[in-house]
């Protein structure tokens, strides 16, 4: 429960440093140098593309169970417009198939 492993702590510190670098570094850098328009354009595509890059290989690495869960989650987003309900319905769908199978 309360143990700390060296490599894990190191990874957490690395993640903390990487995240703080974006919070503080962006302000620090771009309040001195105005970002070129192409930098802003490129960065504006990053959030969506980052999520796509995570989701697509992860979904394809799964099986029919995960594909069904993905479909249910997407349909739920479409119907409810919520970012919270799809977590429940998608997971419930996968769980149901898992319990039945």
């Amino acid at each position, binding site marked *: 429960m309360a*143990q700390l492993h060296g490599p894990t702590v190191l990874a957490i510190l690395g*993640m903390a440093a*990487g995240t703080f670098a*974006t919070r503080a570094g962006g302000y620090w850098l771009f309040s001195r140098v105005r970002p070129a328009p192409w930098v802003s354009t490129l960065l504006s595509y990053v959030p969506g593309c980052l999520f796509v890059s995570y989701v697509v290989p992860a979904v394809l690495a799964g099986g029919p169970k995960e594909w069904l869960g993905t479909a249910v989650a997407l349909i739920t987003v479409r119907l409810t417009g919520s970012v919270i309900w799809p977590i429940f319905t998608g997971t419930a769908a996968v769980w149901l198939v898992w319990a039945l199978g």
Partner: protein
Amino acid sequence: MAHSSPATTPVLFTRDGFMRGLRASPPLLIGGLPFGLVTGLTAGAHGLSLLEAGLMSALVFAGSAQLIALGVWTAPVPVTTVSLASLTGNLRFMLMGPLLATWFDALRGWRRWLTLFFMIDHNWAMALKEIEAGRRDAAFLLGSGMPVWGVWILTTLIGHLSGSLVAAGPGHPLFFAALATFIALLAPMWRGRGDLLPWLAAAAVALAVSRLLPGTAWHIVAGALAGGLTGLLCERAKAGR
């Protein structure tokens, strides 16, 4: 309270501003609940101890980046790739910070860097509105961010504990929740047809790199950059026509 022009009023950092932020935070707390639970659950599934899961949420304090890093978490931990995944996952902060520069510029020493630490998507948007309304108290960001941080740590711990209660092993359907969270967050990011090619490029590059370098986070970095470049090229091509 006298209203003078924003340009001449100095930026403050007061208890009143902090309290104002605090009062604005409850909706943010409720919206964040499921994400903290999923993050704690996922951290437990990847072998992080309760303390480590709490430490991660306390020090990193960035939901999607934490989930992305946990998604590529293997044993031994790839320290460089998870650090890089966090940096890439939070690149948007680099564009957000400068827009609040009128506040940060006026803060000195620890106040400035501590306030930056508590900047998240939602209170950033609120702070932007505060600035537009001519309000000059930068402690607002701290007051609205700190409760979210506290609840974020708490829900991470609860998520971790509930995972060990269910005694869910690897492959348990409960862990689909992390992926479902991303699918839920991805859908509203679709801005229109202009996103189609960048998203396809990101997917293709991410798939290819995940085959070449399995068990790393490089496919996420590569896909995000490929998508960004594609978007840039598309906009250039459209402007050139």
